[in-house]
């Protein structure tokens, strides 16, 4: 059984989803790559920010 940490699961999820979003939502390869990176950073970044918020609220 594969048991990734929460963060590893977020990174894997973001990676796969960003690849598909990049390819399907933009027309040219250059824009696909840029949009994919943008989505990846938003996925991972928002997970980190929300995690810190929940940590601070729970204290």
């Amino acid at each position: 059984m594969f048991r990734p940490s929460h963060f590893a699961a977020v990174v894997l999820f973001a990676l796969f989803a960003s690849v598909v979003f990049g390819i399907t939502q933009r027309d040219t390869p250059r824009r696909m790559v840029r949009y994919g990176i943008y989505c990846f950073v938003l996925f991972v970044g928002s997970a980190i920010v929300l995690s810190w918020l929940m940590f601070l609220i729970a204290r």
Partner: protein
Amino acid sequence: MASEQNKDASADKGFIYLPLIAGWLVPGAGHFLLRKWGRGTLIAVSIIGMFVLGIAMQGKIYSSAHDVLDLLGLAGDLGNGLLFVFSRILGLGAEQVQVTTADYGTRFIVVAGLLNVIAAVDAHNLRTGRKS
């Protein structure tokens, strides 16, 4: 000029929904049919990888719907096409979600299906010329 006309003429031939259906049944197949090898490979690796990781995390594959959330999960799982069918036949996935990683796995499987639907629609848009 002439080659573009030939390309347009060949694009009009055949069953227009074939990339959509093929892309739904097999991730990336819609793009492969349109000779978009790179895009198809990336889509196939991403969606199949996500599905396999979901199974490896003992994610649940929805087989019936007892409430609205189950129905949404089943709809997402159906987006995986033949991956869903084979996983049901082979009895893959967990019956009950008992650990946290299994919950992640369940989401991976559902989202893989939803991404596959997006990719299949993208293949259809390429086929109809709505996207280049």
